[in-house]
C-alpha cells in the first residue's frame, strides 16, 4: 500500500496570532511556522503502518509557497520516504481553498498511483475540515474521517476498503519528534517540486476576503452563589423562559 500524506505549513500553534494593520490577513512574516499538528498525526499513522510493514511507501505532499519545503523536510525527518512539493507563489498560497488542495491531491494520486491518502482532520489556520471529504468525493473513494484508531482487519466502528481517504483526529497517536540526526539524513531523501501549472489545476479563488479582524474581547463573567442563583440569572438574561 502506497500512502500519500498531506502536510500543510501553518503558523505554529504556540504563536499569538496578530492581524495585519490593513486587516487583509494575519501577520505571517518573521513568525514561527510548523507542520499542521493534525497532519503530523496523519503522518505518524502512515509511518507506523510502514514500520509494521502494512504500507510500502509513505510520500509527503504539500501545496504551498517556497517555504512549504520546510515542512516536507520535517516529514522526511519523521519517516516519510519521499516528498512532493506542488509550487505556488506565497500570494497564491494565501488564497488557496480546500477545493484547490483536493483537486491537486487527486492529480497526484492518479499520476503516482497511491492506494490511500492520509490527511489531518483540519488545518489549524483556516479550520476548514473540507479537504478530506472533497478529495474522497472527487476520487470516488470511501472515506474514514476523524479517525481515532487505525487497525488492519480490526473490529473498528468503520471499515473501509483500499483505496481510501483518511483524516486523522487528535487522539489517534502521539507524533514522534523530528530529531536533528534524522533532519540531516532527510536532506538526502528525494523531494520533487512540481509547479502547479504543470498539473493543470485551476486555483482561481472562489471566495473573497473582505476583512480580517481580531475576535471580540471576551467580557468578564460573574459568579453565582448556587443553582437557584444560576437559574435566576439565566432567566434574567432571557436564556430560559421565565
Amino acid at each position, binding site marked *: 500500500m502506497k500512502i500519500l500524506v498531506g502536510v500543510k505549513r501553518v503558523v*505554529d500553534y*504556540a504563536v499569538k496570532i496578530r492581524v495585519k494593520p490593513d486587516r487583509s490577513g494575519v*501577520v505571517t*512574516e*518573521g513568525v*514561527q*511556522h*510548523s507542520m499542521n499538528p493534525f497532519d503530523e498525526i496523519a503522518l505518524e499513522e502512515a509511518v507506523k503502518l510502514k514500520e509494521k510493514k502494512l504500507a510500502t511507501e509513505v510520500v509527503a505532499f504539500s501545496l504551498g509557497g517556497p517555504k512549504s*519545503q*520546510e515542512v516536507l*523536510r*520535517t516529514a522526511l*525527518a519523521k519517516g516519510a520516504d519521499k516528498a512532493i512539493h506542488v509550487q505556488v507563489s506565497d500570494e497564491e498560497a494565501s488564497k488557496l481553498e480546500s477545493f484547490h488542495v483536493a483537486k491537486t491531491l487527486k492529480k497526484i494520486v492518479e499520476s503516482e498511483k497511491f492506494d490511500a491518502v492520509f490527511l489531518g482532520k483540519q488545518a489549524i489556520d483556516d479550520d476548514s475540515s473540507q479537504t478530506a471529504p472533497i478529495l474522497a468525493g472527487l476520487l470516488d473513494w470511501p472515506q474514514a474521517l476523524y479517525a481515532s484508531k487505525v487497525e488492519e482487519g480490526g473490529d473498528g466502528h468503520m471499515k473501509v476498503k483500499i483505496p481510501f481517504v483518511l483524516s486523522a483526529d487528535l487522539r489517534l497517536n502521539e507524533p514522534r*519528534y*523530528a*530529531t*536533528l*540526526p534524522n*533532519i*540531516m539524513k532527510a536532506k538526502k531523501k528525494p523531494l520533487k517540486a512540481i509547479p502547479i501549472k504543470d498539473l493543470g489545476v485551476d486555483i482561481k479563488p472562489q471566495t473573497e476576503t473582505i476583512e480580517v479582524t481580531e475576535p471580540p474581547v471576551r467580557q468578564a463573567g460573574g459568579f453565582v452563589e448556587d443553582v437557584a442563583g444560576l437559574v435566576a440569572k439565566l432567566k434574567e438574561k432571557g436564556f430560559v423562559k421565565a
Partner: protein
Amino acid sequence: MLSTLSKTARISQTRFLRLSHSAAAKDAKPKKAPVAAVDSPSFVMNLFRGKAVTDQVFPYPLNMTEEQKETLGMVMSPLEKMLIEVNDVVKNDETSDIPRAVLDQFAELGTFGVLVPPELEGSGFNNSQMARVAEIVGAYDLGFGVVMGAHQSIGYKGILLEGTDAQKQKYLPDLATGRKFAAFALTEPTTGSDASSVRTRAELSADGKHYVLNGGKIWISNGGFADVFTVFAQTPVKLADGSTKDKMSAFIVERAFGGVTSGPQEKKMGIKGSNTTEVHFDNVKIPVENLLGKEGEGFKVAMNILNNGRFGIPAACTGAMKHCIQKTVDHITTRVQFGKKLQEFGNVQEKLVEMISKLYATESIVYMLSSNMDRGIKEYQLEAAIGKVLASENAWHVCDDAIQVHGGMGFMRETGLERVLRDLRIFRIFEGANDVLRLFIALTGAQHAGKHLAEQASGVGGLIGLAVSRVTGGNTGSNFGQVVDSSLQDSAKALDQQIALFGQTVQGLLMKHKKGIIDRQYEMHRVANAAIDIYSSAAVLSRATYAIKHKASSADFERKVAIYYVEKVLKNKLNFLLKIIFQAMRSSNRYLKDAANGTENKEKVATIESLAKEVCGNGGLTLQHPVEL
C-alpha cells in the same frame, strides 16, 4: 562549568607585565627596542586606543543561509515541545536531578552534539544555530542548559578544538549522541579564578606509555555521571636549559581507566537539576595518546575552550530574559490595582522597557559574536568576555525586576521566577567570575594600547608630541556616518565621542601608572564598565540598522529601543563612569594635568583601602550600634 573560574585574569596579568615593561621602557632603558605593536581587528581592543575599527561590528554580521535557517527552524519546535513535555523543570529543581531517561530523549533529538560535524554523528550546526538552541533551553531550564553546556561547550570542546583526528574519531561520536557524557575538570580547592595554580599532577610512567594522574577536582558539572573528562594537571616539563618545571597539561580521561571516583551531588542555590560533584583521581593510568594539545600547554587549551564556549552563556541568559519578560507582560496586562491594569502605570512601563532594552543589547551581542566566530574571526576574546559579563548581569536584573513587578506573587515558588533568579546567580560567577573578566577586559585592552603608546612615544616628539596629539586629535577614524542608519546618527555621534574620550582616558591612565596599572583595580573596573557600555551600544546600533535595512517587522520598535539604550548607557552613565576616573573630564588640559599630577581618585581609593583594612583587621564590623547595645 562550575569548574571554570577564569584564569584569564592571570594570563593577562603576566602578559600585561611584559607589555607595561615595554610601555615604560622609554624611561628606564631608552636604548632597548620596544616590542612591535600589532594592529588588532577587534572593535573592543581598538577602543583602548580611542579608535573605532568597525569591520567586526558593521554591518551586523549575521549571515545564515536559507538552508541553515530551515534546519534550525525544523529543530526548534520539537526542542521546545520536549522541554515542555519531557523535561520537568520544577521537578528537576526539587529533586536536584535530571533523570537519565530524560537526557536520553534529548540525546536522540541531537542536542548533545550540536557543533560536532555530521561525519562524527553530530548535528553540524554553526555557532549562531547553536546560540539559538541554547537560547531556547535557557528559556525553559537553566539547570538543563548547564548539563548541556558542561557537556559540549566545555566538556568535550577541547577534543573538538584541539584533539587529534584519532582522538576525535574515538570520542566524538559517542559524546555527540549522548551515549557518553563529558565534563570539564579544572577547579580545585585552591584553584578558583587563579587557574594555573592546579595541584593535580600527572607524571609519565617509567615505560613512557602512561601518565599517572593523582589529585582532586571540585564543583565539576556532570562530575557524577560523566564518562569522559577533560582534566588539567601539572606535568614536569623539561626546559631548554635541561632543568624541569611543572607546567599545566590537558588530558582526556575516561572513567573506565579506573581510579576515577565522584563525590555526592553538591547542595546548591540554583541550577539544582545539574549535577555538581567532586571528582578524584587515584593513580589513574592515562595512555600517552590521550594528552590533549601539547605537553605544558594546558593553560592555552583551557583558555581556548573557555573563549570558544563562552557565547553559550549569553545565549542561555537571553532565553531566560525572554521568559521573564513574557511572564511580566502576561502579568501586567491582566493584574488590576487601584482600578487600573498595571500596564497603565508609568513606573511599570519603565521597568518593562528597561527589561526589553537589556534583552535587546544582550541578544544583539550574542548573534554578533556567534556570527563573527562563524565567519572565522579569531580575535573575539574581549567581545566574548563582555558578552558573558553583560548577559549574566542583565539577566539577573531583568529577572529581579520581573519579580518586583509581580509583587508578592513573584516571591512565591509557584510563579516560577524565584527559581530562575536562583538559577541565574551562578552565571555571574562561573566560566570566569565577572569581576575577574572585567579586569581581563581592561588589562588586555590597556596592554594593547600600551604597546602602541610605547611605539608612538619612541617616534618623533616622544611623549610630549604624543600628549599634544592626544589633546588636539581625538579622531576615532570611525565610519559611523556611512554604516549606521541615518535615523540613528545622533546615537552614533554620542558613541563616537565616547570612544574618543575612552581612548584618551586609557592612555592617560597608562602614562600615569605604567606597569602599576595592574594594581589600579578601582580604575580598571570602571574602564571595563565603560568598554561594556560602548561595545553594547555599537552592537545595538548595528543590529537596529540591520533590522531597518532588512525591513524587519519590528524595525521601528528596534530603532526606538536602540536610541533608548544608547541614550541611557552612553549619554548619561558613561560620562559619569569616566568622571569617576578623571574628575576634570570636561577640560582636556585639566585632565592631562591631573593625569600627570596623579591627584584624581587618590583620596577616594585611600578611603576605600582604610575602611576595608580596619574591618578586616578587626575580623568583623567595627561599627558602633546607634543604641550602643
